[in-house]
């Protein structure tokens, strides 16, 4: 218990130290969070009327972001499988970054859902036994369960591994292995359940298609790992943490397959809808062509299509995949592409036309955008803090001091362009 306390104290000291760049970054996030908090205060005060959601389009930007981020969270599993099932060393060293990303993404997911509901203070109605969780009938109840489980597993594994590293011990395999193995099905489950949430509604033909779950999974395996690669590059550039090209290339390969499957499934869905051309085509027409003069999403979805296809080419072609510049480009393109396609592109057409075929065009208000920005900033803040602790631990720059009580902090500066860091390395301070 005392150890944990000292570890905790050490992390507090650690996160308060860093380079100028680190402080600027944290400050930037904190100010965005503050803006978001003000936007949220206004929404709480006036109600969700400050959004552009209405009875016809009853979910909007918040739930779109939520849906996308569930995918990002699920993608951590792509590092866990090669690392712990196939014991592939280059990835094993970085798998913990994936778990921390999953934790941050889930935090954002939960925040987006909280922002979206009319009575967040009644959250306790969702707690089994205390409230009245409608399990197993409601898929939303399932989602609450699997998201929390996934968060708990990832947080436990990551913290446990790092904590042991800090105390220079080998993590107990009997604890980590089952948890890591459990995290694989539970990553799949958060995505499957979120897809089922939409999928199970007979009222909404746009979502009521059995291909939705595989489409969800495929797109998650594009966006999440793409974000991971971007983080790898940043971490490699701005911290002392070493990440091998080999590991990045492996992840990039997986993305190439995932984009292919994602495009294939989308194509299958488009064929079915356009060829049969039943009344259910309307939502697709709204998304891709515009319906009765309403076409707010059309430029977005085509942007997404172009981005995804370009990214696919970049990932498929070995020359561009191995080139770091084009690889980063591909990652950014596919991340944005999937953000549009699995965010607004998935949620909004479910409501347009609505169940009585009314068309209400939705676009987020300023408040919705600010609030979402605040949530993203919070997620990145959480992720930064987690990395601030995790990376020095993994580098051996943050560990228990020789007296076995206090902590040794070798990395005073965090987020420094690498050549500079070498200089500061020579003067570690305790």
């Amino acid at each position, binding site marked *: 218990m005392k150890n944990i306390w000292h570890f905790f104290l050490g992390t507090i000291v650690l996160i308060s130290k860093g380079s100028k760049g680190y402080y600027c970054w944290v*400050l930037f996030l904190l100010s965005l969070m503050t803006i978001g908090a*003000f936007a949220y205060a206004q929404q709480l005060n006036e109600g969700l009327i400050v959004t552009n959601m209405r009875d016809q389009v009853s979910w909007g930007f918040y739930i779109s972001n939520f849906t996308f981020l569930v995918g990002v969270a699920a993608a951590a599993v792509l590092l866990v499988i090669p690392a712990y099932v196939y014991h592939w060393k280059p990835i094993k060293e970085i798998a913990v970054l994936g778990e921390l990303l999953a934790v941050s993404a889930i935090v954002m997911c939960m925040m987006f859902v909280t922002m979206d509901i009319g009575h967040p203070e009644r959250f306790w109605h969702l707690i089994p036994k205390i409230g009245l969780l409608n399990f197993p009938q409601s898929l939303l109840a399932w989602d609450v369960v699997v998201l929390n489980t996934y968060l708990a597993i990832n947080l436990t594994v990551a913290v446990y591994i790092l904590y042991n590293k800090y105390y220079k011990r080998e993590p107990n395999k009997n604890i980590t292995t089952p948890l890591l193995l459990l995290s694989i099905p539970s990553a799949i489950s958060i995505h499957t359940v979120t897809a089922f949430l939409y999928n199970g509604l007979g009222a909404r033909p746009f979502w009521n298609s059995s291909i939705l779950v595989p489409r969800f999974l495929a797109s998650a395996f594009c966006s999440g790992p793409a974000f991971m690669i971007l983080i790898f590059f940043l971490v490699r550039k701005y911290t002392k943490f070493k990440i091998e090209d080999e590991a990045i290339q492996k992840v990039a390969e997986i993305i190439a397959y995932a984009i292919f499957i994602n495009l294939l499934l989308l194509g299958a869905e488009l064929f079915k809808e356009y060829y049969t051309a039943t009344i259910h085509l309307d939502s697709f027409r709204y998304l891709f062509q515009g319906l009765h003069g309403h076409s707010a999403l059309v430029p977005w979805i085509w942007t997404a299509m172009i981005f995804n296809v370009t990214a696919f080419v970049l990932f498929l072609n070995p020359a561009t995949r191995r080139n770091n510049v084009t690889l980063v480009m591909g990652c950014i393109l596919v991340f944005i592409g999937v953000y549009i396609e699995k965010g607004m592109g998935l949620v909004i057409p479910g409501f347009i036309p609505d169940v009585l075929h009314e068309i209400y065009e939705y676009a987020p208000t300023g408040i919705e955008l600010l609030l979402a920005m605040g949530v993203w900033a919070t997620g990145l803040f959480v992720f930064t803090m987690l990395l601030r602790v995790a990376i020095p631990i993994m580098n051996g720059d943050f560990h228990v001091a020789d007296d076995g009580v206090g902590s040794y902090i070798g990395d005073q500066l965090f987020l420094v362009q690498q050549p500079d860091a070498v200089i500061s390395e020579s003067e570690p301070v305790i």
Partner: protein
Amino acid sequence: MSDTKKCDDHVLHKSRRKMLKGMAAGIGLIAMPGRDASASIWEEFFQKNFRELSKDELKAVIARLEKDYSKQYAKQITVKTTPPIEGVRYGYGLDLSRCIGCRRCVYACVKENNQSRSPQIHWIRVMQLNKEKGIDLSHAEHYYNPATVPEKGHFYMPVQCQQCEKPPCTKVCPVQATWKEQDGIVVVDYNWCIGCRYCMAACPYGARHFNWAKPSVPANDINPNTHYLGNRPRPKGVVEKCTFCIQRTREQPGRYPACEEICPVGARKFGNLLDPESEIRYLIENKRVFIFKEELNTQPKFYYFYAT
């Protein structure tokens, strides 16, 4: 180095203060919804789901609500909890050959059920359809507004909650804030609903409506005769829907729903499906009846028919 560090610290502190201030403002707003904050806020916060309340707890809840509402609207407001009547299952009939699309039912419903006037909430939606196209919703006109109705070449189809026998809306609710009662009416506990709107996504008839803002009903327009599961004043951030006028139809002797009472052409019929002698049973057995979106197997207890 130490100078820059101090400077950084300073900036960090300042931003922290700013954030704390923002947070305090946020928390302040959560903690005080309105100026008349009182102990009842906590009672409300900890209130159990309607179906889990004991007799005494229910009594206390009703007393609190009646007091709050009466104060808010400066007149005596009663909140009933009349239970379903044994052997009754309500059914509704709507004669499409008679309906003239005057929307009197829409406004009678608003009045009877204390729907918000601003922002406007309507539990009934009347669609103007093309006689040539039949019931083809993609050609429906929702906001028709001619000087006189009916318009040539058109017919009208009112839609409201169909009180499904297999309601998808209750199935998806994560907290069991909405359910089907013994008499077939699907209700919402406005004090339990978390406002996630999953039920709205699930309902195939657009029958559920959300209080995007605090509902406003002028005090002299409020209907003081209310039911806990029906037309009592709603808070913002919860879902509401048609309840077949639960506050009227569960009375003994029962009253008709406001929409059926007001209809000038008698297009609306209401009765007990379990009573073989009832008018609704006669209609179902003898007229050309259909239910809306039959393929979804929601099994509505709302029957459209053509009497002529």
